[in-house]
């Protein structure tokens, strides 16, 4: 019996990827105190700041960006969706989980988050992206964790 036959494809030419943010595992102190900024209108291109001061790295809001509320009590005057988001994020929660619990699309959650970040009401912990040179210690940490499953 002969299986059907596929033809291999080549990688597309792509512009070089922007440098990935530093791994928070390597610099555990550096990932706190992130603030939002006024982002561009396109919710697919939102950025959050991943540090303070001059040499800040920017990271996009990702499905696995971890979000934590900074204030225990939601301030008055924000949207009900944002109040709900703040309540959910008493402990760290990924954007994907926020989207699931709020029953809101990912891009809507990123818009809500941008405002909350700009207002300093939440903190975002940037995801670790696949880099041009993958961080071997990160891969080893993932393997070690999986082995315990």
């Amino acid at each position: 019996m002969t299986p059907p036959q596929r033809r291999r494809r080549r990688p597309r030419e792509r512009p070089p990827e922007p440098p990935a943010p530093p791994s928070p595992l390597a610099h555990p102190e550096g990932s706190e105190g992130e603030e939002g900024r006024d982002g561009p209108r396109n919710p697919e291109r939102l950025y959050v700041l991943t540090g303070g001061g001059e040499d800040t790295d920017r990271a996009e809001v990702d499905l696995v960006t971890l979000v934590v509320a900074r204030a225990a009590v939601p301030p008055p005057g924000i949207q009900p969706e944002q109040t709900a988001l703040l309540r959910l994020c008493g402990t760290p929660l990924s954007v994907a989980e926020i989207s699931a619990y709020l029953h809101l699309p990912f891009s809507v959650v990123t818009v809500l988050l941008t405002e909350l970040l700009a207002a300093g009401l939440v903190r975002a912990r940037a995801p670790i992206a696949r880099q041009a040179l993958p961080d071997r210690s990160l891969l080893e940490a993932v393997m070690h964790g999986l082995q315990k499953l």
Partner: protein
Amino acid sequence: MDFKSSDTVTGPRAGDHLPHTAQAAVKIVIVGGFGVGKTTMVGSVSEIRPLTTEETMTQAGIGVDDDYGAETKTATTVAMDFGRISLTDQLVLYLFGTPGQERFWFLWNGLFEGALGAVVLVDTRRLEAGFDVIGRLEERGVPFVVATNEFPDAPRYPVEDLRAALDLPEEIPIVRCDARRRASSRDTLMTLMRFLHSLAMTSTRS
């Protein structure tokens, strides 16, 4: 949007909260044809009951020429199952199991970007159902491994035949998997991680 009040929102169950030490998250995407076992694999290794996130895509975003004015756009909602594994107190792994309509997967902004890699599940009864997604991963340079789900009535091809049929280079692992079993799904993820690790070793040596 019919969002009424935050009181109606059900959040994580008692045991589903991440510790405050959680610093960072990584993701792996599980892809494959319709009904191949993607959701099953996510569920078998996840520490939380699998959740569903969704994204709204407009016609302009799914390959139709740009049009103007929101009222002329038709929106499509694409849902995505995902699960979670806390690897350490600081590091969390999310697994995304893509839904059946593959033309949407690669338009979901930020799904494959930044993913460590992908597991391609294939059903040997319908091998060609995985051809397109493998090609798209190749085009995007997303590293992946292939796992064949062993359905009872599925043909059992030798790995060399599968490799030839899928036209995969020697270094890409092809493994057998039973997505219903946690250990088997875990082993498949380990295969992907070892493959990524070997890629990292190669790129630092050259």
